[in-house]
């Protein structure tokens, strides 16, 4: 068993070396495939952080009547936090609201003067709510339909922004879905091209396969070295991809960040380099081994 395994592995390595021209075509194609799949994955990460940025800009503010005591608002806040859809709730007291208002409009003299005319603070306390996903605001807002909230709430700006939020939610969902579909389609293409390349290398060896069978080799003894070769293609392709991708991202990432602030692909790549590399090896080895296994089947009959 061990001897056979050793012989198969040795034969696979020897074949790889002796057919190095054909082998190099196979692993270069595979490098392109793995490079493509990894790039698409990174683009999806980019889309993810972009949509997250976009979603972060959406929030809903609930304004409470001026006479509502602070404890009641804080109680509503702690109830809200318990909802699964809620990501964060920020309490803005009347004083803070006034401070923010003054800060925002400090250059507007008329507004400032008219504010000073008033003897009390006209701004209401509010809760700024952010949802986990843009599509969940409807559910969160419906929370305020229950109990006595109707009496203490002045307005919810969701009603005003409903159309915009819905639009944003559908856009972010759309981007995510399209990104995923593109990833899937291109990944399938990459897999098919790799499979065909390996099929060609096996096709070129079909005569030898027949001879091996006539000499009394069983299927695993014939198939094994080809699978080993496929695995070597995968390993080499994964290593090349990593060595090409590292400097490329180091160079491109700051440029991407300049266009799309809040994204840092190189950081993501560095942080996940081991799992990405393992993923690349996994894709390569799996693709190589399965392609060889499937491609050789038709030549193994009798």
């Amino acid at each position, binding site marked *: 068993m061990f*001897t*056979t395994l050793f*012989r198969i592995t040795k034969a696979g390595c*020897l*074949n790889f070396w*002796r*057919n190095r021209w054909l082998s190099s075509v196979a692993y270069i194609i595979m490098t392109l495939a793995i490079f493509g799949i990894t790039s698409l994955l990174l683009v999806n990460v980019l889309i993810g952080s972009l949509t997250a940025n976009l979603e972060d800009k959406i929030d809903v503010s609930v304004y409470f009547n001026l006479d509502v005591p602070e404890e009641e608002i804080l109680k509503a806040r702690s109830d809200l936090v318990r909802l699964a859809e809620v990501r964060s709730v920020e309490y803005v007291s009347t004083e803070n609201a006034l401070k923010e208002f003054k800060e925002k409009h400090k250059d507007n003299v008329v507004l400032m003067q008219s504010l000073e005319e008033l003897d009390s603070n006209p701004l209401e306390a509010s809760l700024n709510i952010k949802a986990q996903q843009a599509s969940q605001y409807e559910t969160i807002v419906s929370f305020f339909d229950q109990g006595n909230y109707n009496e203490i709430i002045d307005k919810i700006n969701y009603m005003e922004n409903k159309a915009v939020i819905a639009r944003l939610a559908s856009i972010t969902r759309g981007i995510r879905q399209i990104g995923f579909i593109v990833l899937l389609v291109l990944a399938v293409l990459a897999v098919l091209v790799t499979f065909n390349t390996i099929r060609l290398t096996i096709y070129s*060896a079909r*005569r*030898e396969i027949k*001879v*091996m*069978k*006539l*000499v*009394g*080799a*069983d*299927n695993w*003894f014939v198939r094994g070295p080809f699978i080993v070769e496929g695995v070597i293609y995968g390993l080499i392709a994964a290593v090349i991809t990593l060595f090409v991708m590292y400097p490329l991202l180091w160079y491109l990432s700051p440029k991407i960040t300049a266009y799309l602030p809040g994204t840092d692909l190189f950081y993501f790549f560095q942080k996940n380099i081991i799992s990405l590399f393992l993923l690349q090896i996994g894709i390569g080895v799996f693709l190589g081994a399965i392609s060889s296994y499937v491609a050789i089947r038709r030549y193994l*009959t*009798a």
Partner: protein
Amino acid sequence: MIEFKQVSKIYSPNCQALDGINLVISENEFVSIAGRSGAGKSTLIKLFIREELPSHGRIFWKGQDICQIKDNHLPIWRRRIGMIFQDFRLLNEKTAYENIAFAMEVSGREEDEVERDTSQLLKLVGLLDRAEHFPSQLSGGEKQRIAIARALAHRPEVLVADEPTGNLDLLHTWEIVKLLIKINELGTTVILSTHDREIINGLDKRVVTLEKGRIIKDDEKGKYILF
């Protein structure tokens, strides 16, 4: 030992390669299958090595119907016969040594045994100095000798040779034939298919002559007959 019983092979309605073949070959016999191209010699051999199945009839070896052998048992069956072909069928990506060793490796023989036997076989066919050469670096005669060495690697009970000298010049042809005679004398049954009159006349052994898929002559000490 080997028995063909009413064996026919029909590739298509107007292409019948073999027609009702009855043939018995005993142990340690040297049998030449003679006939023109297209007479059915190669088909007969393909059926025996189970590269193809007969359309009708059965083939027995030591009482076992070889048509009943399951696909996953074929490798074991093939290790009991040695084969050589007109086009050598060596593995081009392997050296002469590796080609012979491969035949032993497939049956899981130990490494030191493989090394010892391969060297002995190379010596037997006189090509020990060519061990590290690839088939593309060998002459036709040398390739066929390597193929014979490989065929003997399993220590087969039968050696089947399908036009083994078809691609060789006269000198190399006799080298190969002498080698086959020697192998037969060492106790292996040899089935030689050929259309070469010189070989058949020089052998003075049993000759089975095929014509249009039928056996038309079977002589203990045959000569080549002009059809």
